[in-house]
Structures are given as structure tokens and as C-alpha cells.
């Protein structure tokens, strides 16, 4: 049953560091800006500056390095593929190895590792964002960030409400899945043996009750929300209002300096 307990909600690491205390909108904006700079940057020196900046933020955030690096695990495959493809296919620069049909050129090696490095920095910056920002704060920030787009028909409030409800119900539904699983196991269901197809099939008696129950919950929740006067985002006020502090200004200034230096080099 431990498979369900391992599912963590986002990857928020609670704390009170400078990075944690930044307004989520600032963090969201800076993470986006960082990614843009990352894609404009061309030289190794620029990347070094950006990497140094990342390392500094990680240290400031007081999040264990291990946790930050864990974010890289899912992209290991992509990383190695990127490097391998570039190393073996590129025909730029000086020939380094020439053996049988394998030809490795210096341009390919440099390009491959630069790209991989860029990917690593990209994932690290988003990891830091989600590690230091609670899902609720992030939802608020996304709602506010999307608000100007409402004119073009982007349902900012509705998206944020959906995210909040999803976050609220993930633990509840996981608990329920576990209960159903135990009930089915007690009746002789087998979730763990057999091939991929058989195992996928054996999940049906788990998924169908779970879906039915989710729909019933949705129905009841909608009624409870209406009973509490919910009628969309129009005319709604906020209990917790996000406020920028001086910290946000400093962060933005530091970031601008790093960005300018990185692009100038």
C-alpha cells in the first residue's frame, strides 16, 4: 500500500528563508525571466554567471541540496539523449575521434554539453520555485498573473479555483483509492502480478468506483459551494491579499543585474 503514501503534494519544502518570503508573483515572474535569459544566452561565460546565480538562490533558500537535485531525476534520460545525439551527429569543429564509422567532432561535444547544462538550469530554476512556494500561494500568483488576460477570454479565476479544489481533493481521493484497493484485495483482487496489460486491467475495479465517487463528491461540493453564495469570481473579495515588500524590489534588482551581466558576456 506504500505506493499511495509516497505521492507528495507538489514538492513544497516549508521554510522561512528569504526566498520563501518573496511574493509568489515575484518568484513566478523571475523564474520566467530567468528561463528567457537562459535561452537568449549563447556563451559559456553567460551560462557560468547564470549557474552561479542559481547556486546562490539554492543556498539562500535553505532547501537541502539533495531535494533540489532530485528534481533532475526525471530528465536524466532526456539529458543523456541530448548529449549523445549531439556528440555523434554534429560535424562541426575539429575531428576528435575517428574509429570505424564513429566520428566525433569538438563542436558536437561542446553543443551537447551546453544544451544539457541549459536544461539542468531550466529545471533547477522551476524546482526552486515549487520548492519554496506553497501550492496555494502559487495558485494565487497564477490567478493574478492571468487576470489581465481575462479580456481575451482566459478564465483566470476559474482556473485558480479548479487548481485549489484539485489540491484540496488529491489527499481525499488518495485515501479513498487506498480504501477501495483494500476492499478489492479482501475480495481476492490481484494488483501486483501479471504482465503490463493484465495489471492495467486489474486496475479497473479500483478506478471505476473511484470515478463514480469523485463525480458524487463533485456534485455535493458544487451544492455546498452554491449554498455558500459562490457565483464565480465577479464581485469576490480576498481573505489573504498578496503584498509586495522591499524584499521583492531587491530580488528584482539583483536579478536584473545578473541578467544584464549574463547577456553582456
Amino acid at each position, binding site marked *: 500500500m506504500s505506493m499511495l503514501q509516497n505521492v507528495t503534494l507538489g514538492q513544497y519544502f516549508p521554510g522561512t528563508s528569504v526566498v520563501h518570503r518573496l511574493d509568489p508573483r515575484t518568484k513566478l515572474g523571475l523564474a520566467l525571466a530567468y528561463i528567457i535569459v537562459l535561452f537568449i544566452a549563447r556563451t559559456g561565460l553567460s551560462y557560468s554567471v547564470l549557474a552561479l546565480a542559481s547556486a546562490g538562490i539554492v543556498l539562500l533558500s535553505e532547501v537541502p541540496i539533495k531535494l533540489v537535485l532530485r528534481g533532475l531525476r526525471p530528465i536524466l534520460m532526456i539529458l543523456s539523449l541530448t548529449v549523445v545525439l549531439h556528440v555523434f551527429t554534429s560535424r562541426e569543429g575539429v575531428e576528435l575521434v575517428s574509429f570505424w564509422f564513429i566520428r566525433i567532432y569538438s563542436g558536437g561535444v561542446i553543443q551537447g554539453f551546453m544544451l544539457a547544462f541549459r536544461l539542468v538550469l531550466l529545471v533547477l530554476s522551476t524546482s526552486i520555485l515549487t520548492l519554496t512556494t506553497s501550492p496555494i500561494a502559487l495558485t494565487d500568483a497564477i490567478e493574478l498573473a492571468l487576470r489581465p488576460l481575462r479580456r481575451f477570454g482566459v478564465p483566470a479565476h476559474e482556473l485558480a479555483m479548479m487548481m485549489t479544489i484539485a489540491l484540496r481533493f488529491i*489527499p481525499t481521493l488518495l485515501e479513498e483509492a487506498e480504501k477501495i484497493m483494500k476492499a478489492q484485495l479482501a475480495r481476492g483482487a490481484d494488483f501486483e502480478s501479471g504482465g503490463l496489460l493484465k495489471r492495467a486491467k486489474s486496475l479497473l475495479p479500483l478506478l471505476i468506483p473511484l470515478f463514480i465517487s469523485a463525480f458524487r463528491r463533485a456534485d455535493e461540493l458544487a*451544492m455546498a459551494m452554491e*449554498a*455558500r*453564495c459562490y*457565483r464565480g469570481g465577479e*464581485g469576490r*473579495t480576498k*481573505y489573504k491579499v498578496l503584498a509586495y515588500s522591499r524584499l521583492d524590489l531587491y530580488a528584482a534588482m539583483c536579478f536584473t543585474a545578473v541578467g544584464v551581466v549574463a547577456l553582456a558576456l
Partner: protein
Amino acid sequence: MQCVELNSGTQIKGAAGIIETKGLHHVYRGHEGDTHALGGIDIRIEEGDFVAIIGRNGSGKSTLAKHFNAILLPTEGRVLVLGMDTRDTGLLWSIRQAVGMVFQNPDNQIVATVIDEDVAFGPENLGVPTPEIAERVDAALRQVNMLALRHHAPHLLSGGQKQRVAIAGVLAMHPKLLVLDEATAMLDPVGRAEVIETILALRSIAKMTTVLITHHMDEAVLAHRVIVMDEGRVVASGTPAEVFAQPELLESLGLDVPLAAKLAKELIRSGLSLPEGILTAAQLVDSLCQFN
């Protein structure tokens, strides 16, 4: 959309009760024919009342409750909430603000991922200014004695605690009437006791007008008035002492008499001189302790 809130300054017109139903019928339209859930209900709930509505499954008690805040609209007849007709769509949000409802399943009525944010959900919807929301959230959580857990995630709470949060969420909207639609049905005995204690505290401190829909008779005896429903009609109504003095009627409706009342009756029959009309365990203990 403007939000109309009924402050204490607003005068309730005339002598309208908090709830008044007149010849209320409700028919559920279904694929396999219609179900006549309510067949002519005339009741009145006054300010300060504490009413319990009892009845077996399918007696129409929950359907009736859903008419109190316009979740359901009458097929025939009228429901007036503070003099406002529930069929008037312009008054819908004023009605829902005035009648707070707590539902059966504790999990399916908490919206936010943190307790205090959930309590703030109602006031946010009403457009209450931010500083006042904070005050309301604090006050409501204090009233249900959940202030200490305000930053917790709802899925870590017990059933009784979740229902108390749900009650706080309703109180923060400053309702005139609190309706509990089988709010204790899914709880364990400890959780039930917590919720009932909360309701009694609200009654004694805030004089909250309360409608308690339940199938636990030991909860119904706490009310000032009991309405017994069966097959969509009111079959008996009166003080708990009056209603529970008719065990034959209750039994024919598939309802129970409170355990303490049953025991008192048996004791009287076997020769003990106890006073009539004992309904709760506390009353029974009191009378038994007079013997020496």
C-alpha cells in the same frame, strides 16, 4: 452583481418568521416517473427557535431542508425566508446568506486547502472587505473552538472537527438561521458529541436559530420543538416531551424513542416512582439520584 447583506440594522418586515412554508409541494421528475417528495407542508420557524426534524429515510426531511435556502424550489406552494419568496431569483443570494446550511458529508463541503481559508470562502463570495473577513474568520473559528487548528489542512482533521469547520464556514456569513442537514449522520460517537456540543454552545451564547435534521432521537430531544415527517407530510409536531410520549406512533413510522425515555418508562412500569416525561440521560440520572 450586488450582494445584499442583511445586517441587524435591516428591519425584517412585518411579523414574518425566519422560515414560512405555505402548502409546499415538491415533485422530483425522473426517468421512471415522478416522486412526490413533499405533499403540502405548512410550517413556521420563528427567530430563536430550535427545531428538530425527524423521519425515516425518504420521509422528505432533507428535501424540505433544501427548500429553506432555495437549493430546491417549490413545485407548488411557497417558501418565505424572512419574508423573501424563494422563487424570486433576484433574492437568491440574500436568501442563501440568511440561511446557512451544513451538509452530511464532512469531506464534500470544505473547499480550501487550509482551514481558515475555507471559513473565509463564504465571506469572500459575499464581497466582504478584506479586514472584516479576517475578523469574521477569527470569530467563527473561536465559536466552534477550532482557532488553534486554523492553519491545518482539512484532510488531517477528524470528522467531528471537519463538521465544526463547516459550521464555522457558515457562521462567518452571519446567517439568521443555521440548518444542519444530517450533519452528524456520518460521524463516530465522539464526533457527534463534538458537533452537538458546538450547536448547544451556539444556542446558549449566540441564540442562533437552528434547524436540526436528524435520525438520532437523542439529538432531537435537545430541541425545543420536534417535527415528525413521513411520506412527505408532517405527521406530528410539538415539544420533545409531547412527541416522544407517543411511542406507538413513532414505532409505526420506523422511528425510535430515546433510550433514556425507554428506560424511564420500563422503570416506572416495574414500580419505580419516577416523574413523567424523562427524555435525556441527564434527566434520568437527576431523577434517579433523588432516590436514597
